[in-house]
């Protein structure tokens, strides 16, 4: 595969805080794994906290970690992050800039693309370096099409969907050099005041956007998510919900999947009491394997699933969990 001869600049996300320390997120490790394959030059990370996870970055063979001085500015503001990233771009002159396609990543990609006069693509599922420039593939029209975009101008800015690359440690780990980076902030960054910013309460399960397995409850649960949670735990997956469940107040909005919620691209998607309306399938159609239990035989989800059960989820799911546990016990 052709590679670029300029560094790749990767905007990384960390979880944690100053007291407990910061941990590189899995989607960021995936970005770095992808970045290594794109370039014959260095992979350079940008971290938005004062104490980046140097061990994890070293395992990904990151050469340098740029730490922009955010001062009193919040990394929750996309203009702040973009200004910081733009300062790094100016310093490094990378061949491509990568970030995670979460909400902030999409905002940053749009803003940085506009600022640099560069082409940008979000929700990208694969990247390839070609003679004519960078080629980015993504799914389109609710996952029913795949498109390939060529970035024709500037420094390409790419937001990669979580889970489309498997994170792998580099053969030769590095000890990344930490470089502080001064930033001058724009009027637009100064103009946004963060009144409050609270991390949503963790469920103790793997996060939805990163999960390899997602078990989703729909209207058919009637608000009882216990089978959904039990199956998610049996499969070591995350719990998601359709919009109606959030509208009804059965679940927090943060686990809503679809058009205005979280987009997921898991290996396994399990829909329980989900009929598969178009607004929901937008968020799940790129799943590698789709399984569904729904009592409506005409539900659209049965047209796109790999294995479907027409039945009562409150009977089918407990039986499935029991069978899974038995099979595991027998191993």
């Amino acid at each position, binding site marked *: 595969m052709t590679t670029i001869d300029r560094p790749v600049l990767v905007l990384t996300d960390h979880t944690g805080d100053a007291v407990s320390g910061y941990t590189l997120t899995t989607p960021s490790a995936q970005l770095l794994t992808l970045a290594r394959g794109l370039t014959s030059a260095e992979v350079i990370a940008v971290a938005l906290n004062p104490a980046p996870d140097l061990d994890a970055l070293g395992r990904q063979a990151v050469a340098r970690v740029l730490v922009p001085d955010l001062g009193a500015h919040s990394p929750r503001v996309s203009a702040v992050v973009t200004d910081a990233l733009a300062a790094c771009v100016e310093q490094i002159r990378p061949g491509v800039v990568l970030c995670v396609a979460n909400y902030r990543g999409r905002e940053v990609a749009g803003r940085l693309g506009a600022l640099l006069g560069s082409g940008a693509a979000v929700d990208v599922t694969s990247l390839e370096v070609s003679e004519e420039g960078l080629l980015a593939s993504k799914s389109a029209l609710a996952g029913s099409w795949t498109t390939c*975009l060529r970035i024709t101008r500037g420094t390409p800015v790419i937001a990669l969907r979580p889970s489309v690359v498997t994170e792998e440690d580099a053969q030769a780990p590095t000890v990344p050099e930490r470089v502080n980076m001064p930033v001058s902030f724009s009027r637009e960054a100064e103009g946004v005041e963060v009144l409050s910013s609270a991390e949503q309460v963790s469920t103790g399960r793997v996060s939805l956007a990163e999960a390899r397995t997602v078990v989703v409850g729909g209207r058919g649960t009637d608000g009882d998510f216990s089978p959904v949670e039990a199956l998610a735990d049996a499969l070591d997956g995350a719990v998601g919900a359709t919009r109606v469940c959030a509208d009804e107040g059965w679940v927090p909005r943060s686990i809503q999947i679809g058009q205005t919620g979280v987009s997921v691209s898991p290996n396994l998607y399990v829909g329980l009491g989900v009929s598969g309306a178009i607004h929901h399938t937008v968020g799940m159609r790129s799943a590698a394997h789709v399984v569904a239990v729904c009592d409506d035989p005409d539900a659209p989800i049965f047209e796109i699933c790999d294995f479907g059960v027409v039945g009562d989820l409150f009977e089918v799911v407990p039986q499935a969990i029991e069978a899974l546990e038995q099979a595991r016990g027998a191993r």
Partner: protein
Amino acid sequence: MRIVVCVKHVPDVQSDRRFEDGRLVRGEDDVLNELDENAVEAAVSLVEEHGGEVIALTMGPADAEDALMRALQMGADRGVLVSDDRLEGADALGTALVLSAAITRLHGESPVDLVLTGMASLDAMTSMMPSALACHLHLPFLGLAHELQVEGEGPWTVTISRSADGFDDRLRATTPALVSVTDQVNEPRYPAFAAMKAARSKPMDEWDLDELAEVLHVDDVEDAFTATRVVAADAKVREGAGTVVTDSGDAGKQLAAHLLEEVL
């Protein structure tokens, strides 16, 4: 309060959406982007409360006027369509550049206090346009509002609540500002017959690129609006669709067996 609300005319999500020659097929069954209805509703409600004017703005082919008409029916006061053959194939960032020029021209007529957009358009779903537009206009950007409060009387204080990436945030800015809204921010009104009739007599402008020349400075028009080009578009067929069984007492076991064999 003078509000510009940016809207898009997109293929109905329920229609046969497809690409031909790398381009999304438009003009068959197009509607006002559903997520923009929330932006129009927010704009109209704010002007009902604070007084002022709502201008609905779009970029697109001639029939994108239909999306503006819908916005006028919902209570916008004026429509502006930017339409030019040279804009064909423009991507999200190209669109942001053109819309920023149109807003700059409107601002020159009389100051614009607030720019509102939906969180995404349902055709490309990139969500990049609003933050890129704010960048070009040098406006503070409050994205993904599921709650929107506006207080004061010129300049106004805009406060939003949003939930994104595992955080609940409250953000504030002073007008002029740019806000994108989600579909949870309000319930868009359904226009009554009288409103639909009244919409037909509201002003509708159509501008081409030459009319934006004073505020839009690009050397190479085609290059400026299409920094990404679709080189391939393929319909995706989901493989393995699907074994569907009807539960007769052992479907849970079958489901487990399927997962153990095929996935786990």
